[in-house]
C-alpha cells in the first residue's frame, strides 16, 4: 500500500490530536483529586525568649552543621543590641553571632542591652511564596514555608520579598535557601537543631495543639510579640521581651 505525503501528515495529525486529548482527559481527574486532598494548617509555633538569650551562638553553629549551610550564610543568627542613654541604637552580629560576641567597650552610657535571635518566621501569609513565579517556595501541609530546590530557578524575588531578610541565595546550589524549622527533624518527632542545643531554653518549639508542649499554651496566653506585625504576614515565631527598637 502506497501512502501519499498528504495522507501521512493527515493521519499523523489525527493520531497526535487523539492521543493528546485522551491524555488530558485522563490527567484532569488526577490533578483535581490531589487539589482536594489535605489542607495547610499551621501546626507549629516557635518562641524566642530574648530575656533568656545569652548570645553564645551555639544555635547558629548547630544550624550550620545540621543543614550544611554554606559559610557566610545564615539560616539563623543572633543580633546584639545596645541602646545608649542618648537614644542611639547599636546592632552588631559578627559572623551571625555564631562564635559568640567579643566583649567590646561601650561607646557611651548604656541604657539597655540584649540579644535577639532571628530566623524564618514561617508566616501564615508569606510574601515569599506569593511572589515565586515557579511554585518553588510553598507552604507545606504542616504550615512550614519551604523551598523546592529542584524547582527553584534562582530569580531571588522571594529574597527581596521577605520583610525579615530570612532568605539568602545559596552560593553552592544557586537557589533560594532559608530556615526550614528543621522540617526533616520535626517530622521525626525531634526539635529543630537550634532548639536542641540552646543551653538556656531561649528557643522553644512545639505543636500548637499539643497539651504536653507549653508552646501552644504560651502563644495563646503569654504576652508575646511578633516582628513587624504591621506587615501583615502573621509570623509564627513569637518573641518574649521584645524591645521597641528591634526591627
Amino acid at each position, binding site marked *: 500500500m502506497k501512502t501519499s505525503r498528504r495522507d501521512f501528515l493527515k493521519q499523523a*495529525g489525527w493520531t*497526535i*490530536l487523539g492521543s*493528546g*486529548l485522551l*491524555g488530558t482527559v485522563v*490527567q484532569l481527574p488526577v*490533578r483535581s483529586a*490531589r*487539589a482536594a486532598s489535605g*489542607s*495547610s494548617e499551621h501546626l507549629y509555633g516557635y518562641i524566642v525568649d530574648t*530575656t*533568656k*538569650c*545569652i*548570645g553564645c*551562638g551555639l544555635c547558629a553553629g*548547630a544550624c550550620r*552543621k*545540621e*543543614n550544611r549551610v554554606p559559610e557566610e550564610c545564615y539560616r539563623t543568627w543572633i543580633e*546584639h*543590641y*545596645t541602646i545608649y542613654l542618648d537614644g542611639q541604637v547599636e546592632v552588631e552580629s559578627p559572623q551571625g553571632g555564631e*562564635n*559568640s560576641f567579643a*566583649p*567590646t567597650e*561601650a561607646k557611651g552610657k*548604656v541604657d*539597655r542591652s*540584649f*540579644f535577639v535571635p532571628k530566623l524564618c518566621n514561617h508566616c501564615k501569609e*508569606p510574601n515569599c*511564596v*506569593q511572589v515565586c513565579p515557579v*511554585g*518553588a*517556595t*510553598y*507552604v*507545606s*501541609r504542616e504550615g512550614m514555608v*519551604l523551598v*523546592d530546590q*529542584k*524547582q527553584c530557578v534562582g530569580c531571588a524575588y522571594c529574597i527581596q520579598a521577605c520583610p525579615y531578610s530570612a532568605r539568602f541565595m545559596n552560593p553552592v546550589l544557586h537557589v533560594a535557601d532559608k530556615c526550614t524549622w528543621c*522540617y*526533616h*527533624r520535626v517530622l521525626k518527632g*525531634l*526539635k529543630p*537543631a537550634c532548639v*536542641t*542545643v*540552646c*543551653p*538556656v*531554653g531561649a528557643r522553644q518549639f512545639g505543636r500548637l495543639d499539643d497539651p504536653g508542649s507549653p508552646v501552644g499554651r504560651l502563644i495563646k496566653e503569654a504576652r508575646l510579640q511578633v516582628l513587624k506585625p504591621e506587615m501583615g504576614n502573621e509570623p509564627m515565631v513569637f518573641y518574649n521581651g521584645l524591645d521597641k527598637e528591634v526591627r
Partner: protein
Amino acid sequence: MLNQISHILKAIGLLLLGAVGFFILRSFIVPDSFGVQHSYIYGYYREASDGELAAQPTIYQGSEACLGCHAVAAATWKEGKHAGVPCESCHGTCRAGRNEAGQKPVSDSSVAACMKCHAALRGRPVGIHQVAALDPHVQEKVKWGCQVGSLVAVDNRKSVKEKGDIFAQGLRCVLCHDAHHPLLRLKEFAMQKAERERLQRQGTDNATLSNGEKP
C-alpha cells in the same frame, strides 16, 4: 462556499493541533506531582518536594539519646548547675557514640568554649555566671584552688603577675570545675581546705601543748 468552510476547518485544525502540542509538551516539562495541593495562593508546588526535604538525615539527636548509655555522667549532670544544658551543646553532635564525621566526639574543654556562655558581655542576663578574662575570680580562685586542692597543673607557686596569662600556660576552667556539675569539685576543695586547716590548728595546738608541758 464549500471552499470557505474548508479554510475555517483548516484554521480550527491548526489551533487544535497547537493546543494538543502544548499539552503534550507540558506533560513532559511539568514535574509529576506538581499542582495545587491545598490552596491556590500558597499551596501550588511539587508535592514530591516534601518527601525529599524530609529525607535529609538528622545530625543532632538530643540529650535523651545520650542519657540511656551515659548514666553516670547523667546522674552528675542532673544534680548540678548545668542540668538542662543539652549534651550536644558542649560535646558536639553524637549518634550512637560517633559524631557526624564517624569519630568519637571530643569535647572542646578550652577556655574559649566555656567563654562562649560565661564571658562577661554587655546584655548577657545577670543570672548567668560571667567571667571577665583574668579578673579577680581567676587571680584569687586559682591561687585558692592551688592551696587547697593541689590539682592545678601549672606552677601556682609563682604569683599571678609573674605568670602572666595563665590561660596561655594551659590552665583551663575544667581543672577546677567539673563541666557536668560546675560546683562539685569546689565542694571537695572546700572540705580539703577545712581538713588542712584543722590539721594545722591541731599541729599548733600540739606544739603549744608540748611547749606548755615542758618544764
